[in-house]
């Protein structure tokens, strides 16, 4: 890889022209070729753009969402989406405004009916500061640091800025762009907060799965013998159990403990990676088997390098392009699996939220009779679909970029 050569690491970032000239002298590196190939793949580029938007939205969810993650309002369950108006009664453009919604009971069918109350307009305000104790949040890059560390290091930045809110001093009129769920939570905000879990869990799980797979595959391929036999048998045994059922059994291990969501999240990452490492281990093993007979590996051995050094410094880096492709193609699978797990109620637990868990609401609370007209509770499913689709496209693009046979 170009970034690992000593030339590019020294000093400040070289100018683009200098870099291009150097690349020409040295012959293009794998990453340069791959990047060039990748840029010619319009679908993959589009996918990268959409994923960038999704991840940015997840990172700044506190700012983008009008209400905090744990906001509930049990008087306001299954409220239909609030319509934002951009034109006033005379058809002229105006500042965006909404009308509040009122619910009443239809005395004939005993069903809740939502009506728009057009007696008063409420304008939307942008870049509002909400000072309430629940409206404060920890801004994005800092929020990645675990809470415990933040407390010990005494970093407590708080932000109060939100992208939009209702211009209502009494704070009784709420804006729910995508309606509310079974607890009156804001679906729009929850989709953004849920994106944090749904979108990161795939990346983390595939990282862990590949780490385990590389370690096990590397060991099996390099040492052979009984270790190889044992690891292969283990992979075979895990493969023999249908994955959905193994997954459900594994998550039942921590389900009865009623753990807080900060612990459940890493546990799900572990569970997902435990069932996903087998395929990686098999391929890495096969690659290491052939790589260790190559001249450079034999030379390293002759030069007295330790086994661990040969595996780490000479063999595993050779499998890197394969690993990048496998990772990008494994992530959508893990996103789907997390969604299934949370959908079954064995994954992320409330008050934390993920897209799968939000669809669980559609399954369990709405009951069949409410399914027909409460369409907005299906919105998280569209996000699962889009993120899986775009990760698949990105993975295809990367595979084409790294695979010499499919170069254009």
């Amino acid at each position, binding site marked *: 890889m170009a970034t690992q050569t000593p030339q590019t690491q020294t000093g400040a970032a070289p100018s683009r022209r200098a870099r291009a000239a150097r690349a020409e002298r040295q012959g293009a590196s794998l990453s340069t070729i791959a990047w060039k190939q990748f840029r010619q793949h319009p679908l993959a580029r589009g996918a990268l753009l959409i994923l960038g938007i999704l991840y940015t939205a997840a990172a700044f969810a506190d700012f983008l969402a009008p209400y905090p993650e744990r906001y509930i309002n049990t008087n306001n369950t299954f409220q239909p989406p609030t319509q934002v108006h951009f034109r006033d009664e005379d058809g002229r453009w105006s500042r965006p405004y909404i009308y509040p919604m009122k619910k009443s009971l239809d005395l004939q069918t005993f069903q809740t009916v939502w009506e728009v109350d057009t007696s008063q307009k409420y304008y939307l305000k942008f870049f509002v500061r909400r000072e309430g104790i629940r409206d404060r949040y920890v801004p994005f890059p800092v929020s990645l640091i675990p809470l415990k560390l933040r407390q010990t290091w005494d970093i407590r930045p708080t932000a109060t800025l939100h992208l939009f809110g209702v211009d209502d001093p009494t704070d009784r009129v709420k804006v729910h762009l995508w309606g509310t769920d079974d607890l009156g939570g804001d679906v729009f905000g929850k989709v953004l907060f849920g994106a944090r879990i749904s979108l990161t869990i795939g990346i983390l799980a595939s990282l862990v799965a590949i780490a385990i797979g590389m370690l096990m595959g590397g060991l099996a391929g390099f040492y052979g013998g009984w270790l190889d036999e044992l690891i292969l*048998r*283990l992979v*075979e*045994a*895990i493969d*023999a*159990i*249908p*994955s*959905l*059922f*193994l997954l*459900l*059994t*594994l998550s*039942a*291990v*921590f*389900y*009865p*403990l009623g753990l807080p969501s900060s612990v459940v999240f890493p546990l799900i990452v572990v569970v997902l990676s435990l069932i996903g490492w087998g395929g990686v281990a098999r391929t890495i093993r096969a690659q290491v088997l052939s790589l260790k007979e190559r001249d450079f590996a034999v030379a390293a051995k002759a030069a007295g390098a330790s086994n661990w050094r040969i595996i780490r410094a000479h063999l595993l880096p050779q499998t890197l392009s394969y690993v990048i492709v496998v990772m990008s193609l494994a992530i*959508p699978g893990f996103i*789907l699996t997390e*969604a*299934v797990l949370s*959908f*079954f109620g*064995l994954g992320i637990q409330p008050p934390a939220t993920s897209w799968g868990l939000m*669809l669980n609401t*559609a*399954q369990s609370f709405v009951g*069949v*009779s409410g*399914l*027909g*007209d409460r*369409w907005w509770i*299906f919105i998280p*499913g569209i996000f*699962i*679909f*889009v993120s*899986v*689709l775009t990760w*698949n*496209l990105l993975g295809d693009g990367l595979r084409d970029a790294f695979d010499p046979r499919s170069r254009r």
Partner: protein
Amino acid sequence: MFVFIVRRVLNLIPTFLLATFLAWFVIEIAPGDFASQFAFDQVDPNKAQRIREVLGLNQPWPIRYLYWLRNLVTNFDLGTSMVSKGDVTTLIYPRMVNSFWLLLPATVLTFLIAIPIGVYSAVRKYSIGDRVLTVFSLIGLAVPNFFLALLVLAFAVYFYQSNGWFLIPTGGMTSSNYSQLSLWQQVLDRGWHLIAPLLVVTLSSLATTSRIMRGEMLEVMGQDYIRTAKAKGLSENVVTYKHAFRNAVVVIIATIGGLLPGLISGAGTVEFVMRWPGITPLFISSIFAQDVYVVMALLTVLTLFLMIGNLLSDLALALVDPRIRY
């Protein structure tokens, strides 16, 4: 060939033992057991302990695994359900039959549709039809099947609310008045309930299967003997269907075993959403109740099923492909 079969079957035994041992281990590391729910019984504080003794839960788990294995091997006894107090085999048997009636038509339908699609896209590579099918399969790969099932249910409800009658049922396997129907009405009723889950399971497994078929077909059509056949002056149809298709289908036969786990898992989520009384709903309720023997029995039977499926497709491949000789 006989030696190959024997060796292949013998090879299954250690895998099976390791798989069941792993499954048992995973169940056992879960905190608490079936008796934990009685731990805070007001009337009888020792109730949990007594239940553990009666059920043998006070013994160490490797010992119980060996007991379980002995009963399984000597008289096919999968144990007793702690929740329903009944024999596990009689409990899971009807569930397995129900799942089978969803899985079998879904598998057949998937292959009946996927193989022509795959052949078409391979023969007309990069045509408009192929591109449309590619887009559809990308979509099919990305839609979670439980989401698709929810959407179908929502449509069923919506249709009922606007038209006053059910186009497709909103879940379940039979109508509530099933037992009063005559035989052919019962058959019709079951078929009517099968439509929605069958549709969802087939649609969600179609994408993968047709892509595999397309890839195989392309692979075969790039081979030298296809060029030779064309050079001999054979017609395009003969080359495609007699030479290429036959060889590509061989590989598809071999992948049926490999596709089964995905089909079972996919059908499982659909069973859960559409309340099809198959194995998955039972599995989930048993997981929540920590009913070890039911969970274990389902895992065992499914593992056996998968292993036999893989074995059969390996054997089928060995039979059809003259290059494979053992």
